[in-house]
């Protein structure tokens, strides 16, 4: 059975099917006013508990970068004044129990939405139903997923496996997750990754055939689920599982090893992060700091700009968490494609070519100054560096640096401490910047190559556009020449050059980039062990040889094929 691999690895175990329990109407009619009042109280308490529980899940997900939008809507529905008023009226005037009242009100609401002539609104009926179920679970705890009794080597199978389901089982015995719905960012995927157990999600209706105690093979690397395997398959997957574990152990053993090539060249491997919690998690993978702290999350999901003190606390928490390791703070990188409602950015024909990132900051100096003040104030708590995104010419750097110096002056005048020698760098993600790296090098302390945007601007491809996204490829010889130029110019001017785009964590590119002279790679933390494994097993001489060969090849496909061949273990 095919699904989506959401957490890598192979698990072989027994199925335990998680079923949602359906409540039944009791038809009980309440006697007397006291009972009615008690039911209203019970109902109100249930709503409070349900809201609290959802908020807890939101916090957990937020810490894992998960999407919380659906859950925010849950909170709104749980507190929906129309639903609350209808339920209370049913209890007090029709003398129904709180449970029956909730079921009837929710059923009526679901029916209303189902009858609307709009596919989107009909789907919202599922949200209302979910909110109702949450209320009912608080009113009648026997409806909660219950403490599933699980034996050793359990594979949980369900519609979706929610963080709440996980709370109800002995998670230490669960070795795999399988769900009917969901994608790579579903609840089950997040839970599985956090626990480091394999998961296959989005298996579809075929999953209904799986029964309790079926033997399951969960291949989270390939997105494959095998039900009641033949002895041959069992043997094959047992071998695969051993190989995976061996590799994982080997990678794990590398955690505290320095990333040094066999001929002694030191490379820094860092993590791209969004907050202090990410940084902490990245240390477990052996990250040596962060080459990219995105600051957008601070600005998103709210109705006003975050103030200086709020930002200061955020940067300070990251600086402290870094425990002396460097953290590159990228200033606000936002634009028409990910707008902030309170900034009233006009809609644009070409948001990627429009008013965004440093262009907004140099225009809306109030926003820029507040952010720089907060970063500088936090710079006494660790090794923070400042990085400006979307630089396309020298003048933008000059303007940004003038503002930075003004901010420093203002802090000095109030005797506010900050790191006066804070390093300043730029993202190289616009082709003009990559081409004139030699002119920009003298202006800053470091470069960081943003391969995602550099690739899309160089190739004139919107990678979200299904019809042209096949043209998006960082191994295009033109893109590689730009990258090579940036690294060479950076090294020539003795300023360090890093990379923080997706390419930095792509093992196919590691040796090529090393050969080009890149010494700092910043990536999603989970990729660090794989990249490190390649670096410690190669010499710079070999990497340079690979680079020379690649730069002589004419096509993306020839380059990719060659790199895959030399990277194979």
């Amino acid at each position: 059975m095919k699904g989506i691999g959401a957490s890598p690895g192979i698990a072989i175990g027994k199925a335990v099917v998680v079923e949602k329990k359906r409540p039944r109407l009791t038809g009980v009619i309440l006697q007397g006013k006291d009972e009615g009042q008690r039911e209203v109280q019970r109902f109100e308490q249930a709503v409070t508990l349900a809201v609290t529980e959802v908020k807890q899940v939101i916090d957990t997900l937020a810490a894992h970068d998960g999407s919380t939008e659906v859950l925010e809507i849950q909170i709104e529905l749980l507190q929906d004044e129309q639903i609350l008023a209808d339920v209370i009226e049913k209890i007090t005037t029709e003398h129904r129990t709180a449970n029956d009242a909730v079921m009837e009100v929710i059923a009526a609401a679901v029916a209303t939405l189902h009858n609307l002539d709009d596919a989107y609104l009909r789907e919202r009926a599922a949200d209302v139903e979910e909110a109702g179920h949450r209320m009912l679970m608080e009113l009648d705890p026997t409806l909660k997923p219950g403490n599933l009794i699980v034996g050793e080597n359990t594979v949980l199978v369900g519609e979706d496996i929610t963080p709440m389901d996980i709370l109800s089982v002995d998670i230490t015995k669960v070795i795999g997750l399988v769900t009917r719905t969901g994608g790579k960012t579903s609840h089950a995927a997040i839970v599985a990754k956090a626990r480091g157990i394999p998961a296959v999600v989005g298996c579809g209706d075929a999953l209904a055939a799986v029964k309790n105690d079926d033997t399951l093979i969960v291949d989270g690397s390939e997105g494959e689920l095998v039900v009641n395997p033949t002895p041959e398959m069992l043997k094959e997957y047992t071998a695969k599982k051993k190989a995976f574990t061996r590799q994982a152990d080997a990678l794990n053993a590398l955690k505290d090893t320095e990333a040094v090539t066999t001929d002694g060249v030191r490379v820094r491997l860092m993590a791209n992060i969004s907050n202090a919690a990410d940084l902490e998690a990245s240390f477990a993978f052996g990250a040596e700091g962060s080459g990219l702290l995105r600051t957008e999350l601070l600005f998103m999901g709210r109705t006003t700009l975050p103030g200086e003190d709020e930002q200061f606390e955020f940067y300070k928490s990251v600086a402290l968490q870094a425990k002396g390791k460097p953290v590159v703070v990228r200033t606000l990188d936002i634009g028409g494609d990910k707008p902030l409602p309170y900034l009233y950015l006009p809609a644009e024909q070409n948001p990627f070519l429009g008013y965004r990132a440093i262009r907004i900051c140099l225009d809306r100096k109030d926003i820029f100054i507040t952010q720089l003040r907060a970063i500088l104030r936090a710079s006494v708590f660790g090794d923070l560096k400042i990085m400006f995104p979307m630089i396309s010419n020298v003048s933008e750097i000059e303007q940004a640096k003038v503002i930075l110096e003004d901010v420093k002056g203002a802090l000095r005048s109030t005797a506010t401490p900050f790191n006066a020698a804070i390093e300043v760098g730029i993202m190289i993600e616009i082709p003009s910047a990559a081409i004139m790296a030699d002119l920009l090098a003298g202006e800053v302390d470091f470069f960081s190559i943003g391969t995602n945007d550099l690739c899309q601007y160089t190739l004139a491809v919107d990678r979200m556009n299904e019809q042209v996204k096949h043209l998006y490829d960082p191994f295009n010889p033109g893109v590689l020449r730009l990258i090579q130029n940036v690294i060479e110019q950076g090294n020539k001017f003795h300023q360090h050059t890093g990379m923080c785009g997706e390419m930095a964590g792509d093992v196919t590119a590691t040796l090529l980039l090393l050969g080009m002279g890149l010494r700092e790679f910043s990536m999603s933390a989970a990729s660090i062990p794989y990249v490190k494994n390649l670096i410690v097993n190669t010499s710079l001489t070999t990497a340079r040889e690979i680079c020379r060969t690649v730069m002589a090849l004419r096509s993306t496909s020839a380059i990719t094929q060659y790199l895959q061949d030399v990277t194979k273990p």
Partner: protein
Amino acid sequence: MITHDYLITAAEGLHARPATNLIRLAKKYKSATSLKKGEKTVKLNSMLNILSLALKGGDTVTLIVEGEDETEAAAAIETFFKEELKHL
């Protein structure tokens, strides 16, 4: 009492996410706020009510605000319809 008609300019209408923002906005004021489309009038305090109006892009909806801070409330909701809804 203040009433005002708005044309829903967001192509996808008034979805759950903007509805959440609108309810939270309306709750900040003491005035009673409702929305009217055709014959149907609903209080602006419930996601379910707003969804059941099934507002689509191009629909006209009437805002009705009544209470001590109706001027401020109507102004804030006007900003929502005219500016924010486009970006949500």
